[in-house]
């Protein structure tokens, strides 16, 4: 219930796109917390840096592409 209310608040305040991005970011953060950190030994900081760089670029391009209003045009309800 709390999660649903929170999502509704996000959609209202920030829009669908920002809600989608924030949900994805939360899931990613959760996945990073639960990691096999020991397997990377002394390179853990490098791993984190690579992850951040990758995700920043991915989010940047997604933001550029998803913000466009170029999707298919649907006939309006009144026209049907």
């Amino acid at each position: 219930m709390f999660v649903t209310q929170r999502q509704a608040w996000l959609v209202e305040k920030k829009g669908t796109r920002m809600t989608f991005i924030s949900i994805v970011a939360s899931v990613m953060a959760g996945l990073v917390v639960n990691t096999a950190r020991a397997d990377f030994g002394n390179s853990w900081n490098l791993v984190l840096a690579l992850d951040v760089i990758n995700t920043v670029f991915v989010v940047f391009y997604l933001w550029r592409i998803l913000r466009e209003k170029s999707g298919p045009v649907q006939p309006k309800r009144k026209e049907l």
Partner: protein
Amino acid sequence: MGILTPRRNQMLLTAWAGFFVNYLDRTKTAALLPLIVASLAMTKEQTGWVLFAFFIGYAAVQPIAGFVTDLVGARKTLAVSVAAFSVFTWTMAMVNSWEELLIRNAIFGVAQGFELTAGCRLVATWFPVRTRGRAFAFHQTAYTLGPVIVPFIAVPLAQALGSWRWSFMIIAFFGLPVLAAIDRFVIDRPERDPKISQEELDYIFGAEEMANKQGTVLNPTKAHSQDELPPGERLVSYREIFLNRSVFLMFVAGFFNLIFLWGMATWLPTYGVRQLKLPLLWAGSLSSILYLGSFFGVVAGGILSDKFFGTMRTPVWLLGGLLTAGAIVWAISFQPGVALWEAYLCFFVVGFFTSWTPIGQLYAPYFAELLTPGAVGRAVGVVNLGSQVGSAVAQPLTAMLIIQTATGQQFWPAFVMFAVFGVLTSACVAGTIEPKVGRPYLAYLLSGKKAKTAVGTSAGQAL
């Protein structure tokens, strides 16, 4: 004018890159599997479940991916898919246990599942009928090259950096240039591209179509008249897409098709070692030879369809299933001591003709011509669901048919099954409508080449 000057070719190269990175990404897990199994101390059963999880995620999402592609647009769908599988690749590098790998592999499969429908839709929309077969053949070369190249990227990276996890971390970056290219070169429809020339639009749609069709309703199931649609599209109903005899037969053909394609590709190295008694290196190279054959087969099939068969698609598939079955029957006779060149030649031929089957190539042009380019995502989604279910059952089904003898394992029962499924694939294709002549291709030949209703306008195509 260079080959990359036309906007359609820039779009095609980007869609190809997306499909190539998709295959590179998914096959790296198989290439690194021995290292992953040792690292996570996985049993044979757990390994099987992890691999199965990918196919379940991938298959389950196919119909949804088709809808999303057609309703949201191929550009956004492609971008979200590439972004998602790029990110999930690096998260898979961080797993602690086989259960985590299983869950993340399933999610990774879901992310990858949205790529194919978007790529198909783009090629179907951006290329005219006369070159669509060859354009899609180029797109399909990505799935033949990915598995050949991946062992030379993923394994050396893991060996050089000391862990399979680094291969995942680095390959995750391969999606970024693809995202940049999508942002720059991919537009959902040619007439919406501000950079395209009028000359190219006329080449894609024809000058008359461009002049007469100015509609903006991009979903062909929502429009009320042809005038509401953009150039290159025609009205279709949901019934025509989903209750269509040809779509149903393609669904079944795809199931048979991927059982023998995927079963053969994944079991060949084991067959080489256990039945032919080949050293591991030579046995492993049998899969590469199969994909190399597929590469040449895809290219040849596209040219054959466009040029020799005059843009008919189903004749190539009819030949593909039957000739694959013939080549597999040849392989049944191989025993230890078989000449390596003969085994290579046989599996090259198997790969070559396997790519002439319905899921190997030409399916996006086929659905564009049978239905309309605007419905290709949905049709491919449905058909690929059948195919991926075939992929998922291919490995356990093949394993069940391998028999143990005094001299070692024998694969002939599995090969007989592959050959039978090759014939069944062609049998399904024999019932599908060839859009150019409005009837099944064999019926067209038997009637003395009498064509029926024009492309994709027959109401009789519904079940």
